[in-house]
């Protein structure tokens, strides 16, 4: 039982980080219906700025700079590329974001080179002991931050003009435009927000229990894909739920891999995708996603 608890708590804490990444996908998808593969490089960009600046200006200032930088990169990608891409389908735009991601990731990994960069966070490798269970402080913070951000987004979507514009655009972009919503601004702001979220996620992805930022960090963004999808690509609550489900599934499957040997060793990585498929078969728009309206 203690093992199960330990794994569960670990899974939830990993899931919080996935949720933060997934939230970035969700914000962009909500506003533009684009699946953003550039998210991996936004992560890398945010993490890189934090890693490079923290020895110079301190952790918190570096964090702020990293968030700002990633937001800027996100906004630039939207403004310089996606806005100008005249393509028929969102699928093609998704492929464009793959192209942008390749560009950015190649350059950023070239900058990072072969180093492993620490982010200079104040939590270090401290852990909290909750009865028989231990959990890294960074992960507790991540969980709190993810929950806070998701609540903040829920409130913002409900009560601010930006949120109403975003929801209106998400539901029906053309009608939103007819109401005077400036779609360009909505999508620009969504990209900037997603960039900022990516930087926050990068922080928690690169601190303890992982050793730091390096060229492989971006790969973790992949795990947030099933999280975002199974929660529902347009749902903030879904991002949290999806992140937690992926985190818990992965951790439990890894932790019990000896018992699950018949599924093959290393099932932890494939498991979230299997869960995702099952959920999509039952609910094609994810757990909390809105059914894609029949639009012609």
């Amino acid at each position: 039982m203690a093992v199960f608890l330990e794994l569960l708590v670990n899974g939830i804490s990993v899931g919080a980080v996935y949720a933060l990444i997934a939230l970035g996908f969700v914000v962009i998808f909500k506003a533009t219906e684009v699946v953003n593969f550039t998210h991996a490089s936004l992560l890398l960009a945010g993490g890189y700025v934090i890693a490079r600046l923290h020895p110079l200006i301190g952790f918190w200032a570096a964090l702020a700079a990293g968030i700002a930088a990633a937001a800027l990169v996100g906004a630039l990608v939207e403004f310089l590329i996606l806005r100008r891409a005249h393509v028929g389908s969102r699928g093609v735009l998704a492929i464009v974001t793959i192209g942008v991601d390749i560009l950015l990731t190649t350059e950023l990994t070239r900058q990072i080179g072969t180093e492993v960069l620490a982010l200079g966070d104040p939590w270090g490798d401290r852990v909290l002991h909750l009865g028989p269970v231990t959990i890294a402080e960074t992960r507790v913070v991540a969980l709190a931050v993810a929950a806070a951000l998701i609540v903040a987004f829920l409130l913002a979507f409900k009560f601010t003009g930006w949120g109403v514009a975003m929801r209106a655009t998400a539901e029906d972009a053309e009608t939103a435009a007819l109401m005077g919503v400036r779609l360009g601004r909505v999508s620009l702001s969504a990209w900037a927000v997603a960039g900022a979220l990516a930087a926050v996620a990068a922080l928690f992805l690169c601190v303890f229990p992982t050793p730091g930022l390096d060229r492989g960090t971006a790969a973790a963004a992949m795990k947030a894909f099933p999280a975002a999808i199974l929660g529902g690509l347009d749902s903030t609550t879904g991002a949290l739920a999806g992140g937690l489900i992926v985190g818990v599934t992965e951790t439990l499957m890894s932790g019990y891999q000896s018992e699950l040997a018949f599924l093959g060793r290393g099932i932890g990585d494939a498991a979230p995708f299997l869960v995702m498929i099952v959920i999509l078969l039952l609910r094609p728009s994810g757990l909390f996603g809105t059914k894609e309206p029949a639009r012609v």
Partner: protein
Amino acid sequence: MSEPVSEPVSEPTSEAATPVRDTPTTATSTTATPTAGTPAPGASRPLLAVPGITARTLRLVLWLAVVAVAVAVPFYLEGFWLQAGLFAMSAAIGAIGINLLTGATGQLSLGHAFFLAVGAYSYVYLSTDLGLPTPLAAVAAVIVAGLCGGVFSPIAGRLKGAYLGIATLALIFVGQHILFNAEPVTGGFNGRPVPPMELFGLVFADTPELVVLNVPFGSLERLWFLGIALLAGVAVFARGVLRGRPGLAMNTIRDHEIAAGVMGVPVARYRAGVFVLSSMYGGLAGVLVALVFQQVVPDYFGMLLSLDYLAMIVIGGLGSVAGAVAGAAFVSLLPQLLTRYSDALPLVAEPGSGGVSPAEAARILYGAAVVAVVLFLPGGLAGLATRLGRVRLKELRWAKSAPAPASRR
């Protein structure tokens, strides 16, 4: 209100003679801008007098040249180029498949690499373990890939857009898990050696030795012809699909799914069917790439491969066979060219010297190509080629009052 009847409100414009509804001829004339790239014989108006002959002649000369080059290549180029060419051919076959799915039908798939894996591993398993003759094993491998696509098609038919795209990611991760773990079939992380194809007594391997016209014909030279034949066959087939009624239905599903349904296109069946067809193309690409590799290893069939395929069709041109081939050639040859000629290229630094290495330059160029094509070159490389060279030919065809081909994008 004193003058109840009078002149029409709309004044005739200079284009008044043009009917409102476009006939194919006028549709072309809006896009057709005669350019310098047109071959000389077709460049002048008078040819319209004998449009059929001229157009056919031009096409014939073109294809003649293509075939001649394709046949001559193994006699001149060294193994590196042949292998690069074979990778490009395999990529082209796979890219045609995903272009049917993503380009023509609008279904995003990130799982194409999985079907390549199915094709490659099935070929090995069927020919080695089950002892099927290799050509039969290859055909069966393609069918197995199609079956796998069919198994996934309930999902493919149900999901669309982003959801389908990411659901297909699952194929990659789950697929690789199986490749690594189902050792009796897949050989685990080591993969398995690929038995050479044997067709009408000809073995596609280095032994027994074969010398054709004084040139030693090793496996690559022999495979070259197999690759050309396969590519030509599947390209013609895909072109038929795209230009026929299925292609029209696919495009309608992509552009206006509900309208397609209203018009009686069995949307779900089509989506599933195209998924299966695209999987079979992937499977065939996998068989060819396995024959070239001579050993299948699980690492190869990862997500990067899938992303490469998407980049290919965007760069080449969505929804067209020529686009898929052009994009495949671009994406698979670029890194090899850059690596090979890194010494001579001013912008590319020697590996390890700290500058932009060839591999990085290739990735940057190919990322940039995806972006540039979408921003500046709608229609991709194939669209560019069409604009530069084929305009006249098309016009000639239409001048013959043949029905317009289905819109290809």
